């Protein structure tokens, strides 16, 4: 961590990362835009809501995901600097998707992403089953159904049941239930 800058009003924008005034303005402007005319997750979702989207898992998207958690397992490499897109290699043949990657993308399907969404909700738990490997480049369908909405100790939670399947073959890749603490 960089130097900690904290005053009576709270921490400064650049307390964890060095920034110029230009960068501080970038951050404040972006964060402000996230909250404009948005709805909370709690208000956007009703029990029984079903939302579904498709995602083509490009080699570059896999690299972005894996680099973010410093996971350099070669099995996931369908893209390398200099050679760019490659078939890759894993015990299943070509490069595959990290096992929990689709779980991470579920959040983008749990609410209507075309509407402004208030930032600040927190993922609290998941129960996932990895049914089979996903080849890099596959197009998957992520289906999410809202199955629970409750208040516990004054906090608002939502539960979802999710399936991830291959769009072409219908193969089931992942099932999951998960809970989110709404802002």
């Amino acid at each position, binding site marked *: 961590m960089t130097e900690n800058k904290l005053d009576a009003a709270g921490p400064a924008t650049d307390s964890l990362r060095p920034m110029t005034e230009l960068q501080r303005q970038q951050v404040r402007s972006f964060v402000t835009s996230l909250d404009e005319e948005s709805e909370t997750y709690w208000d956007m979702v009703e029990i029984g809501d079903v939302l579904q989207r498709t995602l083509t898992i490009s080699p570059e998207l896999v690299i972005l995901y894996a680099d973010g958690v410093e996971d350099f397992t070669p099995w996931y490499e369908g893209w390398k600097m200099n050679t760019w897109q490659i078939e890759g290699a894993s015990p299943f043949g070509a490069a595959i998707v990290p096992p929990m990657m689709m779980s991470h993308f579920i959040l983008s399907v749990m609410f209507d992403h075309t509407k402004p969404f208030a930032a600040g909700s927190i993922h609290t738990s998941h129960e996932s089953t990895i049914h*089979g490997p996903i080849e890099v480049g596959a197009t998957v369908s992520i289906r999410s159904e809202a199955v629970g909405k409750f208040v516990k100790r004054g906090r608002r939670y939502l539960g979802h049941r999710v399936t991830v399947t291959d769009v072409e073959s219908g193969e089931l890749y992942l099932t999951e239930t998960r809970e989110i603490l709404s802002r």
Partner: protein
Amino acid sequence: MDIDVAQLVLPGGAPHPDGLVKADAPVGFQLAGLKKRAAVQLMASRVWGRFNPNHWDPVFAHETGLSAPIQTGEMSSAYIAEMCVYNFGRFFFAGAQVNCKYISSIAAGEVVTTHGVIREALQIEHGTRFTVDVWVDNDSGDKKTVGVVTVDVTPEGASK
């Protein structure tokens, strides 16, 4: 009993295809873990926390009652999955269950370690079904994520 880490990684950095937890591994067997730092630059990346400033902006985090930006829980799950892939190899992609609860936040800058200990080894038709207690803690031993992983491992030379 735990794993010989020197054999866990093949030349080039890949996991052993079958992992190193064999079907006859005993209860109490410890997985080889990972250590990671919650780097705010990674927490803020577009495919991770960019859409939620609680994960990278100290001002927004403070306004929502957090002492510091916190990692997305899914980063912990990804760390646990990476550990399991190196320990169980391809078996982790064939019906494994991963249940995680994020019981405490991981703040920007914290260093965390993944752990896994086999709690149960059940003989099944094609091998062994392992139930593994997994968790992520910080350098003070404070648990951040706890969970249970279930993996079916087939003996060497046998087909599932």
